[in-house]
């Protein structure tokens, strides 16, 4: 086997990805306040999709429920950082067993970690679901999870302020803090990907039954990656709350889920690089579209309201048609030349098994 600088190979992809995020930071720092805001939110998105990809890229199972972890992180941060006297005014009807919540307070870094842990705790509680379910069932179960969390946050008014916004959160998220969390998340995601558990989970992504037959505890590894990804998504929620200073439960529902899915799918949902690149690219695209619609590129004549959404949907469709696994597919970002692995030279006398395109649907294309 050809040795290719093991250390360089190990860290190359995460270093490149962090570099890409740093580029976004520099754009944000160099630009005006609006640019800085967009860049910071883009980096928070990077943290979120990195978390999502820890689960979905390795297990191959799409999750529609991760926004719920972000919500848990955001609410936890709100509870821990809103000044105590304001909290007393905001939460007058807390049930007795939760009244201690009014008095707790923590610095933002502590709140950040606790938010991650709170999301991870919800991850632990829900992990039996993903440990047991695959494919569509899993997708629908995660969607149901999102609907449940949304319903509870929206209706448990005494504790969550229900459909009222959570307000008065001190602004603690800076672009550099977001960058630091993104870097740590990318490192964690990459580390998990290359861990024992990560490798076994990827094996189960390729063939569930063969993985079982190899003794791989698919459920256990799915649960582990689910919990880790919940933690990272909790961090994203915390950063989000700490940046916006107020948020509403509707920020953690289907439209956010759709926005993140667009990012992950455009980039390539089986690849960490795809998720990160997707998050940055879609954030930038959203901002370009917003300005386009406001008429900033067309000399002031605004486009019809709604154009941005239409273009976004069209872009997603086009990418899906041209590259169904997203821009990156299952590849990871790398600048080093490696030996080609695209296909073994066929030994004489042996047919290559990989099918030309998709056998099952060739007939459809003809029809």
């Amino acid at each position, binding site marked *: 086997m050809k040795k290719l600088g093991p250390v360089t190979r190990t860290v190359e992809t995460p270093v490149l990805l962090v570099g890409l995020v740093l580029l976004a930071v520099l754009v944000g720092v160099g630009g005006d306040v609006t640019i800085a805001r967009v860049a910071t939110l883009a980096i928070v998105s990077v943290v979120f999709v990195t978390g999502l990809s820890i689960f979905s890229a390795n297990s191959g199972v799409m999750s529609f429920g991760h926004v719920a972890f972000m919500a848990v992180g955001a609410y936890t941060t709100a509870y821990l950082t809103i000044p105590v006297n304001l909290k007393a005014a905001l939460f007058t009807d807390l049930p007795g067993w939760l009244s201690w919540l009014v008095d707790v307070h923590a610095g933002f870094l502590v709140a950040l970690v606790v938010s991650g842990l709170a999301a991870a705790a919800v991850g632990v509680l829900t992990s039996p679901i993903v440990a047991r379910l695959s494919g569509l069932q899993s997708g629908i179960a995660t969607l149901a999870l999102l609907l449940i969390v949304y319903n509870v946050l929206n209706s448990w008014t005494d504790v969550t302020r229900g459909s009222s916004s959570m307000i008065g959160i001190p602004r603690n998220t800076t672009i550099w803090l977001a960058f630091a969390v993104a870097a740590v998340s990318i490192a964690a995601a990459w580390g998990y990907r290359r861990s024992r558990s990560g490798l076994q989970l990827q094996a189960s992504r390729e063939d569930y039954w063969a993985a079982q037959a190899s003794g791989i505890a698919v459920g256990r590894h799915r649960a582990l990656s689910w919990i880790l990804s919940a933690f990272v998504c909790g961090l994203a929620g915390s950063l989000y709350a700490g940046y916006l200073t107020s948020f509403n439960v509707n920020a953690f529902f289907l439209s956010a889920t759709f926005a993140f899915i667009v990012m992950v799918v455009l980039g390539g949902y089986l690849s960490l690089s795809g998720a990160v690149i997707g998050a940055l690219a879609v954030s930038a695209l959203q901002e370009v579209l917003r300005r386009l619609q406001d008429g900033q590129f067309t000399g002031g004549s605004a486009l019809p309201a709604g154009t941005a959404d239409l273009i976004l949907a069209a872009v997603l469709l086009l990418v899906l048609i041209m590259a169904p696994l997203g821009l990156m597919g299952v590849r990871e970002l790398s600048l080093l030349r490696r030996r080609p692995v*695209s296909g073994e030279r066929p030994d004489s006398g042996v047919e290559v098994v990989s099918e030309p395109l998709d056998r099952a649907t*060739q007939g459809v294309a003809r029809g």
Partner: protein
Amino acid sequence: MVLRIDDAYIQYGASVMAVQGCSLHVAEGELVSLIGQNGAGKSTLVKAVMGQVPLHGGTITVDNRSVTDRTFSTVRNRISHVPEDRGIFASLTVGENLRLGGITRKDKSALAADLERELERFPVLRKYWSRGASLLSGGEQQQLAIARALLLKPRLLLLDEPTLGLAPIIVDLIFDVVVQLRQEGMTILLVEQNAVRSLEVSDRSYVLQAPGKVLGSGSAAELGKLPAVVEYLGFSAAEVGVAR
């Protein structure tokens, strides 16, 4: 000539050649077998006839019409294909599977007669008419697949490894049916790994070597005189005679 393949090239992916310059033909009423080892490109060739894989060079014609023609339709030209995996619709009943075989036919009364004939040929299908096809055994499914293919009233019948994975007793039954069809005048291209049995029943055979090159062709006796073929197959035509 019912089927003619001229200098066909078929490529998998960007670089791998599955078939390189293969030529063969099947005349009306002939039973021609295509034998060769796993990976020799036999199934690929059959799929190319069905238009399921693209042709990168050469021509394939059925009744002098190119199969790569936009207007060419395997159904209109009555080419029946029994694929390697049999292509049984497991969630449909046996009867529904058979009904699909004649889905394009307009001659309803002739179709009914044909169906009756096939049910005579394969009594097990009548027995299990309203049973789910998934409950049939592999051999029964193969019979269903062949019967269904025959209901198209094929001009050309492509049988891809019809005995793969079947018990010897079922293999015998399938070969019996193939012989029977040949006697009825059906034009058949039979793809088989079982060289001995194929040579036995066929008018002519083509021996294919990877990547999809014809090593030799002709009757069993003719092939037995070709040293390359004998070496490749591992036995001589004389042995085929013994087996018979």
